[in-house]
């Protein structure tokens, strides 16, 4: 691949010029009707969005929130914003009622200059926090418009803003420069040996880094076509996704660990009759730790439809690195490390064991680091550790973020002056492969989303019945979900009677849903002090989690 040009828009236009009539975007709609757009068609549709934004004064460096459903329009809005030298950010969709207020809060906190929506948002004040932030309805797009002249955007300008975990004022905007994203595209394409004949297919939401960069930006900027399906359709009709792989002879796709089990539980044989998945060379899972049992169950369920075992791979990444830090290389069976798990927890060393040994547990490799990416494992005091020693994962890569929007202190803490980023995850290195199994600090991995426990605890502690500083939220493995279930434990204020528990439970659950759109898996209310604290009175989520697991473990 040639050296990257400085911006995403320039690189996109170069691809359009090279292959105007080649397929760029195929959207699998309802009833499996495919909508196809060539590279030149994609550009002309995106130019209509650019014209609408330009009419409202959007230009270089302005942040545009895109609140559209999974659709071709969502893709056009993304490229249309970039054509103006502005910064797009995709907002989660569908928006249940009540999320409009969050979109507004995000527009205020992020300094957005416009919101693109499909007209289903209620009353919207054009002035947000003392500046203009109009709500632009995609039904008011011009019928056609020439692509705008490119403005002088540089390598260090912000290409994309990824909001992490939640959509409220508490979420952080990860700023990614054009240089970081383009360097990521080059490294990821090299790691996967992406070539012109590849056809990628994706149902992951584009408002997540995994769906956006792996599922859309990398393949398009490489010049290969992208097949998209809405996440809702995958949830409802997973078999339609397999049919689309077959129909388009797709070669690359992406998923979460939870998606493996969704396919195992919800795909019926009669729906897969005649389907051949032999074209796939990569089915890469990430976004949460990939579990060997889930991967195996998926392979055993789907193998008879021609899925190659060496296509089932895993990777590791985060929004702060654009996406992947490491990814397993296609064409080789995934590496599984069988280790002594008890020794790992006690001594912090991943000692290899024979698979047959009853003490051994499998850990799925997240692959070797991407080209140009440095990974090191460090102890609590920051000292680098050797092979097979478990510690905190730190990375130094060409695709790191420029900082958290409006949070210079947090940025300085996580992204240090010497270029190393502290991921907050734990893992180890062995034989050039990265193994990740720890949580990102206390982050709860729930169905592919990262949930900050502090957000849930703050909601509970806003109730007068809950003792301040005495609630703990944590994730516990859930075999049914293939992901983590959220548990919240709260110590109640004195004088609360047991008869009040259902009312308090309902109120906490209602507020958690209203703010975070997730449901608690379990809520423990205690009148006697259940939550574990350290000797100096600090909340210990880890110890509370251990206590819960011990309490619920089958005898």
């Amino acid at each position: 691949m040639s050296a990257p040009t400085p911006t995403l828009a320039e690189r996109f236009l170069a691809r359009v010029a090279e292959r105007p009539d080649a397929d760029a975007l195929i959207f699998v709609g309802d009833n499996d009707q495919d909508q196809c757009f060539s590279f030149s068609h994609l550009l002309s549709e995106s130019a209509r969005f650019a014209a609408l934004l330009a009419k409202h004064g959007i230009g270089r460096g302005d942040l545009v929130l895109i609140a559209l459903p999974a659709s071709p329009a969502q893709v056009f809005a993304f490229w249309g914003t970039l054509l103006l030298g502005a910064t797009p950010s995709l907002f989660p969709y569908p928006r249940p009622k009540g999320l409009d207020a969050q979109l507004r809060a995000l527009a205020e906190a992020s300094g957005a200059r416009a919101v693109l929506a499909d007209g289903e948002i209620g009353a919207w004040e054009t002035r947000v926090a003392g500046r203009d932030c109009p709500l632009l309805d995609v039904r008011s797009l011009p019928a056609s418009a020439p692509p705008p002249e490119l403005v002088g955007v540089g390598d260090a300008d912000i290409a994309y803003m990824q909001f992490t975990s939640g959509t409220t004022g508490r979420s952080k905007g990860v700023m990614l420069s054009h240089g970081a994203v383009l360097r990521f595209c080059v490294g990821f394409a090299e790691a996967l040996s992406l070539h012109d004949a590849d056809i990628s297919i994706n149902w992951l939401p584009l408002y997540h880094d995994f769906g956006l960069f792996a599922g859309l930006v990398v393949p398009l900027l490489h010049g290969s076509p992208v097949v998209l399906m809405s996440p809702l359709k995958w949830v409802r009709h997973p078999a339609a996704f397999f049919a689309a792989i077959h129909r388009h002879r797709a070669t690359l796709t992406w998923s979460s660990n939870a998606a493996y089990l969704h396919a195992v539980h919800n795909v019926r044989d009669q729906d897969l009759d005649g389907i051949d998945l032999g074209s796939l060379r990569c089915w890469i899972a990430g976004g949460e730790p990939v579990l060997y049992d889930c991967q195996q169950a998926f392979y055993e369920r789907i193998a008879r439809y021609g899925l190659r075992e060496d296509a089932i791979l895993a990777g590791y990444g985060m929004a702060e690195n654009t996406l992947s830090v490491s990814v397993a290389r296609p064409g080789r069976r995934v590496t599984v490390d069988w280790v002594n798990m008890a020794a790992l927890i006690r001594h912090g060393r991943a000692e290899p064991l024979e698979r047959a040994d009853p003490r051994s547990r499998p850990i799925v490799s997240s692959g070797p680091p991407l080209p140009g990416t440095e990974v090191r494992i460090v102890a609590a005091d920051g000292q680098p550790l050797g092979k097979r020693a478990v510690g905190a994962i730190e990375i130094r890569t060409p695709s790191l973020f420029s900082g958290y929007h409006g949070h210079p202190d947090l940025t300085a803490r996580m992204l240090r002056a010497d270029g190393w980023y502290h991921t907050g995850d734990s893992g180890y290195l062995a034989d050039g492969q990265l193994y990740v199994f720890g949580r990102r600090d206390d982050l709860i991995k729930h169905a592919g989303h990262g949930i900050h426990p502090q957000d849930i605890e703050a909601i509970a502690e806003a109730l007068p019945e809950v003792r301040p500083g005495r609630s703990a939220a944590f994730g516990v493995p859930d075999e049914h979900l293939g992901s983590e279930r959220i548990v919240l434990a709260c110590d109640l204020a004195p004088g609360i009677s047991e008869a009040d528990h259902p009312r308090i439970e309902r109120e906490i659950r209602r507020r958690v849903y209203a703010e975070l759109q997730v449901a608690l898996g379990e809520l423990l209310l205690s009148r006697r002090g259940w939550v574990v604290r350290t000797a100096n009175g600090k909340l210990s989520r880890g110890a509370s989690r251990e206590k819960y697991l011990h309490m619920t473990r089958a005898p």
Partner: protein
Amino acid sequence: MTNQTDDIEAPIRAFILNDILRNPDFPLTDDEPLITGGLIDSHALVEIAVFLEREFDVVVPDTELTPEHLDSVADMAQRVRREHAQGAG
């Protein structure tokens, strides 16, 4: 909670308590908001739709898998009854 029309509500309630909430003791009422009340995740609506389709021989299109349409046991039972009434007429 039992009444003469409980033939549809009761199996739905039992499915939600046992298979989704996994807490058979929760005092769930028929008009209680499930999604917006934070009791179940919106993606569990898919499992509930599959249950309704299998148990009551109805078709629930994707567009109805939202809290606006199916946020309570009562909503779900009403949805089943409406389709049964149409089928009979």
